[in-house]
């Protein structure tokens, strides 16, 4: 197993062989636990009568003292002409600051209930080897975000909430589904058949909004050990926003190894899947790069392990 860069092993196989299954899926498992945990917090009330957390992702109250509110929904309300009460403003500010620090799209990969759906769609998409399909520009979601705000202002309502699958699914699970499951199926097949990584990667304005929140976030992934990269391209294959990797991984000497694009969801899949552990979580001021371990490898990267 030393011909990486020439023979393509299936994505992730090398990491599995080197680090073991858990080592190669650590952040994926943690993310699923986190997603389940955040959902469970809200379900403890209706299921077991433990009302520690009330409400849903749009707005909640924890232990009767900690309000949390989705700032994107509040912003739409403001565009629609309603200035919210202090409780919601405080709740919105807490969420804003928290995601501002840990990375806006941490919401997408660690909390959002739609993420497991689109991840599953992508997993199946890979398995079935389907074509990419419609791939609109990554900027599309920002345009949609702008449109949502404009429509909120024009109609005087919180516009995105009439179709927002994120809050609808969450509310559905906690309060009652109605026909929301149809929406989930719709998104699943959209991602599977119409557009690879379509919803979370190109369309969802909630993700776009949280991206914007996290532009200056502290927590970042860094290609610390980028000189060890053997071009297996596995990180590109697993990353839901793989356009963010190149500047950090393939940057010239002296450029930052940090993945600074706010599109990165801090999901940590690149860390998992890399057999030579190029990536690591760090903070945005840590621009340290590991020195190449073996001078020869710099001149002949593809055959580094062959010797």
């Amino acid at each position, binding site marked *: 197993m030393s011909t990486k860069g020439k023979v393509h092993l299936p994505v992730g196989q090398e990491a599995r062989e080197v680090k073991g299954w858990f080592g190669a899926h650590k952040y994926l498992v943690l993310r699923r636990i986190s997603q389940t945990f955040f959902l469970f917090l809200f379900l403890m*009330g209706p299921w077991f009568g433990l*009302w520690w957390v*009330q*409400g*849903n992702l*749009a*707005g*909640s*109250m924890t232990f009767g003292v900690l*309000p949390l*509110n*989705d700032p994107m*929904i*509040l912003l739409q*309300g403001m565009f*629609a*002409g*309603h200035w*919210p*009460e202090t*409780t*919601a403003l405080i*709740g919105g500010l807490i969420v804003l600051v928290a995601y501002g620090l840990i990375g806006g799209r941490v919401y997408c990969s660690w909390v959002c209930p739609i993420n497991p759906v689109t991840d599953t769609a992508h997993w199946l998409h890979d398995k079935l080897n389907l074509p990419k399909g419609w791939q609109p*520009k990554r*900027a*599309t979601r920002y*345009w*949609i975000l*702008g*449109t*949502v705000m*404009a*429509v*909120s202002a*024009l*109609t*005087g*309502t*919180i*516009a*995105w*909430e*009439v*179709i927002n699958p994120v*809050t*609808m699914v969450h*509310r*559905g699970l*906690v*309060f*009652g*589904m*109605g*026909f*929301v499951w*149809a*929406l989930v199926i719709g998104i699943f097949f959209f991602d599977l058949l119409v557009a690879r990584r379509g919803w979370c990667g190109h369309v969802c304005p909630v993700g776009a909004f949280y991206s914007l929140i996290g532009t200056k976030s502290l927590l970042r992934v860094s290609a610390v050990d980028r000189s060890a990269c053997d071009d297996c391209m596995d990180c590109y294959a697993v990353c839901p926003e793989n356009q963010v990797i190149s500047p950090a991984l393939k940057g010239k000497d002296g450029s930052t190894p940090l993945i600074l694009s706010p599109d990165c969801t801090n999901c940590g899949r690149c860390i998992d899947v890399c057999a030579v552990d190029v990536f690591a979580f760090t903070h945005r001021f840590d621009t340290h790069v590991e020195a190449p371990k073996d001078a020869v490898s710099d001149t002949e990267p593809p055959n580094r392990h062959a010797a």
Partner: protein
Amino acid sequence: MPTAAKPRKVDRRRFLTDSARMAGGCAVAGTLLAYVTNDAKALPDQAIRPPGALPEDDFLAACIRCGLCVRDCPYDTLVLAELGVDGAATGTPYFTARNIPCEMCDDIPCVAACPTGALDKDLTVIDDARMGTAVLVDQENCLNFLGLRCDVCYRVCPVIDEAITLETMHNERSGHHAIFAPTVHADKCTGCGVCEKSCVLPESAIKVLPLRLARGEAAEHYRLGWEEQDAKGAPVVEGIIDLPDRLPGPGTDNLAAPGGFEPTYKLPGVSQ
């Protein structure tokens, strides 16, 4: 430098066409979204918003659909509308009086729970709530209107004798009984729906309706002369000559009056 300018020009053209395409797409998507949101504004008449809810248009700009009001309602009155099942805008709170009416809690926990002000914090006395107003919609089936003494809607009203009273009137059918007509006074009725819930008929004869359906509105310049006169303590218009009233009596052209005589004119359809 024409050689350097050329790719720039292409870049700019590309940028412009891309932007135009995005803008076009967004205009279409935005119109669709606006259509759906406008559609979602239609609130079914039997869906009543919680106490203190802002007028529907403002409510949809304010309510984030968090359900905290639902959770803090001790009677499980409130529910969040489910997509495609309930007619109200998805995720917004409402109640159906005939299922569980609002019990008019003194401390109004639903309003206290609302983080956004979609339920107005200015509502501090539950009697001031105007969720709608009860209307006795079916006099033909209401037992009291049939001459019986059911009285249930009247008895259960939390604002009894103010929001709803029993007004007596002559029972034309029996000729010698009274009808105790349940009569709602919209200026006092909170729209809680307890009466609708309690009506003994299989389909309630008294229903809470949204104010826009239940009420008319007097023109702004209308004045009730008798009230103005009472307030002023004198005739509203000065110098009106008060002509003597022609009372029925001897000498009137009215056979019904004692001592009257037959009128010279003939009223159509009246046989005197």
